[in-house]
């Protein structure tokens, strides 16, 4: 009990000194918020959806099924413009080929081209795409029910059958539910990046300075054991990372409507990640003897890991080869887990592999840091 009290006493003092530093809040809060706003707006630009998603349908079909299909697309949230040739400007475009009806009647498969202008809203495109799946499903269902007869005529005579086939689109749990962009991406990404940077820099420098000034040695004049001292230093840096994450998430929630999905699991990911970074900071602080070296190393590692790990842009958009290399970054596993929670509404089972990797990393780094922890130069 007394050992724990001493550990907490040292930890609380470390936190107090870090928080008491005038520039602490700039680097842990103000600067990351600046990053969040900047990157959030950049990603948000293409992510806002208009009230009505317009789509141009180029109907080259020679038969009757093209018009029938277009009729199924129409809905209040989707404005359909039908034309016979591809316009120069459009936001979203669907092409029905000349043999669209012929292929349906011949029971042959066919591919439809759906295009989106590069900078057009991805959310609107997703809405139109959803409507297309519904239209395809309804057309296929009605074909199965009524065969090749003149459905329009049949339905005109029997209005009670008009909506007999209802198609409801629902994304399975593991598919994307929100386009990964905007603040929902940049807030966790920036948080992960700045936990790495600040825990490594502040945590590393203070371990080095305490050692050089003889403070670590003096702490051991007290009943605190070397193991207790190491745990106290680790705990202080871990709490610093958690504190930073909580502050950034709170700001994200209040000002940017941050949606983390399962919040307790998101905090669990942050906690395990912060523990790994705390151990890394003690390790760096134990190895380095110069402040400049710690800053340089920390900035380099944090930015490299952040870029590779998907803190700056979603990992889903990078080439597969880069994604494979990115696995060396602890940030990759943290962002992977946070993405699964935020964008895919995942649960514990979905993030368990990433948590296992981060947990293993935390254990290994803690062991290595414990071995490298030095009381004196």
């Amino acid at each position, binding site marked *: 009990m*007394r050992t724990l009290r*001493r550990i907490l*006493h*040292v930890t609380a*003092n470390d936190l107090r*000194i870090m928080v*008491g*530093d005038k520039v602490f809040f700039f680097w842990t809060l103000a600067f990351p918020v600046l990053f969040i706003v900047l990157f959030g707006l950049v990603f948000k630009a293409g992510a806002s959806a208009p009230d009505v998603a317009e789509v141009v349908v180029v109907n080259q079909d020679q038969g009757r099924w093209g018009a029938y299909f277009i009729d199924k697309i129409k809905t209040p949230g989707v404005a359909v413009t039908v034309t016979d040739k591809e316009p120069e400007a459009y936001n979203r475009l669907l092409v029905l080929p000349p043999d669209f009806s012929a292929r349906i009647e011949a029971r042959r498969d066919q591919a439809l081209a759906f295009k989106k202008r590069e900078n057009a809203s991805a959310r609107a495109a997703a809405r139109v795409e959803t409507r297309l799946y519904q239209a395809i499903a309804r057309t296929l269902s009605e074909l199965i029910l009524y065969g090749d007869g003149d459905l329009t005529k049949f339905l005109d005579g029997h209005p009670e059958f008009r909506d007999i086939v209802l198609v409801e689109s629902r994304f399975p749990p593991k598919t994307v539910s929100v386009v990964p962009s905007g603040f929902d991406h940049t807030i966790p990404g920036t948080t992960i990046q700045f936990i790495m940077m600040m825990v490594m820099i502040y945590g590393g420098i203070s371990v080095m300075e305490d050692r050089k*000034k*003889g*403070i670590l*040695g*003096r*702490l*051991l*004049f*007290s*009943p*605190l*054991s070397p193991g207790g001292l190491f745990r106290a230093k680790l705990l202080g840096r871990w709490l610093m990372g958690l504190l930073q994450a909580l502050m950034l998430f709170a700001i994200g929630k209040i000002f940017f409507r941050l949606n983390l999905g399962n919040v307790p699991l998101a905090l669990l990911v942050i906690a395990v990640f912060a523990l790994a970074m705390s151990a890394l900071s003690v390790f760096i602080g134990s190895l380095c003897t110069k402040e400049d070296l710690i800053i340089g190393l920390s900035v380099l590692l944090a930015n490299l890991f952040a870029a590779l790990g998907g803190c700056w842009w979603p990992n889903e958009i990078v080439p597969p080869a880069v994604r494979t290399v990115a696995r060396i970054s602890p940030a990759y596993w943290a962002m992977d887990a946070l993405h699964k929670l935020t964008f895919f509404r995942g649960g514990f089972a979905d993030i368990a592999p990433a948590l296992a990797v981060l947990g293993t990393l935390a254990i290994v780094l803690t062991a290595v840091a414990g071995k490298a922890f030095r*009381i004196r130069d």
Partner: protein
Amino acid sequence: MLEIKNLTKSYGDVVALDRFSLDLKKGEVLGLLGPNGAGKTTLISILAGTVRDFTGTVTFEGRSLFADRSMKNRLGVVPQDMAFYDDLNAMDNLLFWGGLYDVPRADLKRRAAELLEVVELSDRAKEPVKNFSGGMKRRLNTAIGLLHKPDLLLLDEPTVGIDVQAKVSILDIIRSVGAAGTAVIFTTHQLAEVEGTCSRIAIMDHGRILAQGTLDALIRIVGEKDIVEFTGEFAAAAFSEALQDLAGDGLELLSVADGLASLAVADTGRIPKVMDRLFQRKLAVTDMKIKTPSLETVFLKLTGRSLRD
């Protein structure tokens, strides 16, 4: 109270402590004198529990000083480094360091306030330590080691690099701590500090105690001889050879190095003869000092070196 027996510690081939033994009684203030590398800091570090892998025993009131970590509650250490937090104020530093020991919180606050009075920092208690002068920092450094009222206090060169006023203040504290019953060991380079502060003085070199006792007892070691120190541009071998036949009969060659030599002489009337011999041999002596018996001459006789070395 404190019993050290055959303490030996080596760093590779270098023996820092060589079968070092010492006893210390309650309230005794022991000044440990020795040149750089004598083993003083190693001794303090071992007693403080931060250096391991040694042989020998250290008991405190019959119990091993390293039996368990609770023994550290009885030990106060003032390191040579000014080891505290510059960003905190003096009071917060005392409360932090004191909080590591088993002292009730209320007692700790009262004790911290008392100690700030003792080290004359009460009026600066709420000021960040980084604004303090070197002397003020040294006083705070000392106060931190006293906060939990230790039974044994170890001070490693507590007066290095400070002004006279701060030095006097710290030596007063050491004296009063000893008078209150705490056993004190403090290491220093400064002979004057131990002369007026310590009830016992030990001179150590090469990891061993060469002599110990009261100031008077130590001075008796060199007897009534004066020490004559020669400086100049001469070779050690030539100097020794020149005075070889004069040695003995009240003249003793204490130490000889290139450019610096010391003799103990029972009668200063023999000095002209020594000078004649040196001039005959064309040894360029540029300065000569005669020192009456003192702790410094004892130190020189025992170690063959000046404390400055």
